[in-house]
Each structure stands twice: as C-alpha cells, then as structure tokens.
C-alpha cells in the first residue's frame, strides 16, 4: 500500500513552497474548548459534560447542544475507544503532512457516547480492523500543544 516516496524538497522546489507552507497546523482553541487542550497538555483526556442534563459534547460548543445550558464540568474520560472507520493517507495530503506519509486517520468511538477524528499510531497497518480496541496516547507536538492520538490495546497489532 505504500506509494512511491516523494521527497519534500522536490515538492518544495516544484510548487515554490516556502518553509511557512510546511508548518504543521495546530488546533486553535476557542474559549469553550481551551480546557480540553489544557488537560491534554497535562496528559489527561477530558470531555465536556452538561451539569443540567448529563449530555457529553464533542467537539464541545459554547453551551450544551442538548439542553442549551451553560453549566458544565470537564470529566475524565476512560481514554479508551474503538475504531469505527479509517483511511490510510498515502499521497496528496496538505504539504505539512508529507513527512508523515503513510499515516492513518480514523474515527474513534468513545464509551462516553461521542466520537473523534484522530490518528491511529504505533499500529501495523495490515492489522487495522474496524471495532478494534484503542487507547489514548499523548503526543507533545510543541512545548505548548499536545495532541491525543490512539494506539491498539492489543500489543500484537502494534507496529
């Protein structure tokens, strides 16, 4: 499945890219999502839960999407999930991600009743399987930002 590798320097020259074009995009938190990223930085995985109706929202919004209440708490999530669908990016991704090819993007389903888009890492791509169990890992991509990603719970699937 691995496509032929294209050197990023070749692409840079071909398309006149600047170094700025290759900078990885980081999440730009909102005032209501900041606690998620603050917790991730401390390697904690939290979700926004409504104090009125108990609804868990992800992505979080300004107020509860079920009952419109402001009152909420950030609860520790299990940090476990299952793989609901995946794609393996091989070619034609935004330039900052060329260095990572091939990489897996996935929909991860959480026991808290929400889903998130993330990467499955530390996994043998041949052993990806819908429904497989995943656990969260924290990737400190900069001093300020940590991205939660997911890896197989089953060590025999790791690669």
């Amino acid at each position, binding site marked *: 499945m691995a496509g032929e590798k294209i050197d990023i320097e070749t692409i840079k020259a071909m398309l006149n890219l600047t170094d700025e074009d290759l900078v990885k995009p980081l999440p730009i938190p909102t005032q209501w999502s900041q606690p998620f990223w603050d917790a991730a930085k401390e390697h904690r995985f939290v979700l926004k839960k409504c104090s009125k109706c108990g609804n868990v929202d992800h992505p979080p919004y300004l107020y509860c999407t079920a009952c419109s209440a402001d009152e909420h708490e950030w609860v520790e999530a299990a940090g476990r999930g299952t793989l609901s669908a995946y794609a393996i990016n*091989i070619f034609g991704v935004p330039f900052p991600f060329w260095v990572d090819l091939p990489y897996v*993007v996935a929909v991860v389903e959480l026991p808290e009743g929400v889903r998130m888009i993330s990467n499955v890492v530390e996994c043998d791509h041949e052993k990806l399987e819908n429904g497989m169990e995943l656990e969260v890992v924290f990737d400190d991509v900069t001093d300020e930002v940590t*991205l939660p990603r997911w890896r197989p719970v089953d060590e025999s699937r790791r690669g």
Partner: protein
Amino acid sequence: MGEAEFAVIGTGEVPTGNYPERSEFEIAYTVARTAIQDAGIDKDEVGAVLCAQHIMSNPDNDYNTEMVFGRLPEAIGAKGCKVTCMTSSGGASSYSIRKTAEGILRSGETDTVLVVHAQRFSQFSANEQAKYFSIAGCDVEWEYPYGMTYNSLAAMITQAYMTYTGTTIQQIAAVCVACRKWAMLQPNAMFNNKEITIDKVVNARMVSYPLTTLMCNVLGDGGSAFVMTTAEKARKVCDRPVYFLGEGSDYSHRTITRANMMDFNQLTAFLGPIANEAYEKSGLGPQDMDIFEIYGSYPTINLMVFDSLGVTEPGKAGELVEAGETSPGGKYPCSTNGEAMSFGHTGTGCGFAILVETVRQLQGKAGAAQVPGARFAIENCGGGAFMDCHFTVMGSEVP
C-alpha cells in the same frame, strides 16, 4: 394527482475543465444568456437574478462582492430585474438557491427568476487549491491538525461501507467507470475523451486507502444557469417545461463525528427517508423514475445515495453498477453527466450541473446522452462534509 407550483424552462452551461483565461464573470454572463435564449423568453422578463457563491474568490476582483452588489443584472441588461442576491450552502447550493427563487416567485414580485453559477479554480496555484480544500473539508481545530482531508473523509466512509456491506473495491471502481461512460457522451464534461476500466481505476495511484486517484473527483472551472418560473407561466411560454414535483431535505452535521447516524454503514438510514419524502410528495415511486441523477462527489457516496432510492436493498447498489445497470443503455441510468468524478468538480456547481442535466434529459435536449423517452427523474445534492441531503422528483409532466 400531483401538483406543481414551479418549473424550469431553460438552461445554459459552459464546458468544465481548465480554462484559466475564461473569467468567472465571462462564464456567468455566457450561461445567463444561453439559459434565457434556451427558455425562449425576453431578457427583460427576468425579475430576479440569483447567483451562487463562488468559492476561493480572488480579492483583486472579487466575484462574490460584484455579484452581491448587482453586477449581473447590469451586465446582461436585465432591465426588468427587481431583486438580486447571492445564496450558498456549498454543494447543496443548487437546492438552497432554488428555495430562494421559489420564495421570490411565491411573493408575486416576479414570475421569472434567473439562477447562475460560475467558478474558476485555475486562477489559483495547486498549493492554494490544496490548502483551501484541506481546510474547507474539515474542522480546523479537531480534524485538520491530524492531517485529515476531504479525500480521507471519503476514504474512511468507503472503508467502513465496504466492510459493513461487503461491497468490493471493484464495485466502487465500477461507479467511476459508469460515470466516465456517461461523460464520454457529454460535450461539456471535463473527461470525455478516454474510457477507463475497473482495473485501471483500482490500480491507479493510491491517494487515501482505499481510494485511488481515479476514485477522487477533480476540480474544474465551469458554470451553468437555469430559468425558473411559476408552473402557470411555464405552460404558456415553454413547449416542454420541467416541473418540481416533490422534494425532501434533511441536515445532519458539520463534522462527520457528529453525524446523525452513528454507524457509517447506516448513511442510507439517513438518506432513505429523505428520498421517500420526495417520492411521496410527487405521488410517484422508484418504479416511475426514468433517470437517477445523483451527486455523490465520490463513488461510495454515489452508491449510498443509490442504496436509498428504493431500487435495491441497501448495500447492494454496487452489484447493479458493476452489472452496467446504471451505465448508458442500463435499466437505471444514473448521474448521466458523469458527475464530479468525470464531469469535473466545480465547487458549489456540482449540484447545478446535475440539476441542469436533469432538465436537459427531461426536455429531450441531452444529445448523445439522451435517455430515450425520459419523463421523470429523481435528483439530489448535498454540501459540506456530507452535512445534508436534498432529493427532488422532477418531471416533464405533472402526473
């Protein structure tokens, strides 16, 4: 007995492809004149001019600003124009702009509305286009930092759909082959001079597993227009108007993780009731449809939409497509302009292209692609990251 309030009486279109020298203004003015002439009316009868938003606009001569500020009625000399505006809901724009047109017609302000779409991607570099679509397709906070793209979204849906329904990659590829066969019959299609095979599609360069380059749509410059009137006026001025007979709509999400349907294999469960509503309102059913004009944008979405149309058991659309039933000469002609994969993806214009093709087919003006004797068709569009869906049953007669 169904009833029809509104109809399309004329269409216009320019070829889709890479035409950097053909400005979006030139496209808009051209398709406007063609549609008015095709409708057989005088330009001064047009009482409202509606434009779809141009995406990736050029700040030095911004098409959107110009159209919002009334450039088009002036440029085409629509002296009877009373209302002008711009409407957009991404790939669903052909539907939302039509709803705007219906509101204007229903108000009695005018009985004739011109609707226009124009797009020129080729004025932007490959890098600019890639950047725009990598951000437009997904959430900048929750998805883009993970290297998510439009193609990976479609790839994930494909991966899940294949796993849960048993659809093969050959059947996915067969959609692209069928689309290409239709495009070969379309003078305005972007890819209309080279047949493709299932093997060629499957073995093309892998982009986002399981999708290859030939399973992904290609951006192109293009545009189209149509003239909408009340059914009453349509009957008076047009030999073969195409009526809106019944519609259904629903909205699901912005980000796919918040889709109404928790399982990707259940997208049909979201789409099916919308199609049923359109059928019910029209008083017709799948057995009455001569054509199925689907705007899927990717082969798998095309199958999921087809799964929802009451023709086949959900999950089995791939078998019909592989057997050639949706190709020219097949029992269920589908996406007869070749849709995004072979006609070309014109941004907010894909739904316009499908609507215009539906009208052409039902007016008997589809040339080499004409489905003989077509009277009724169901067409669809949707926008964003598969955020919504709209089905419309159309007919050259009111049943």
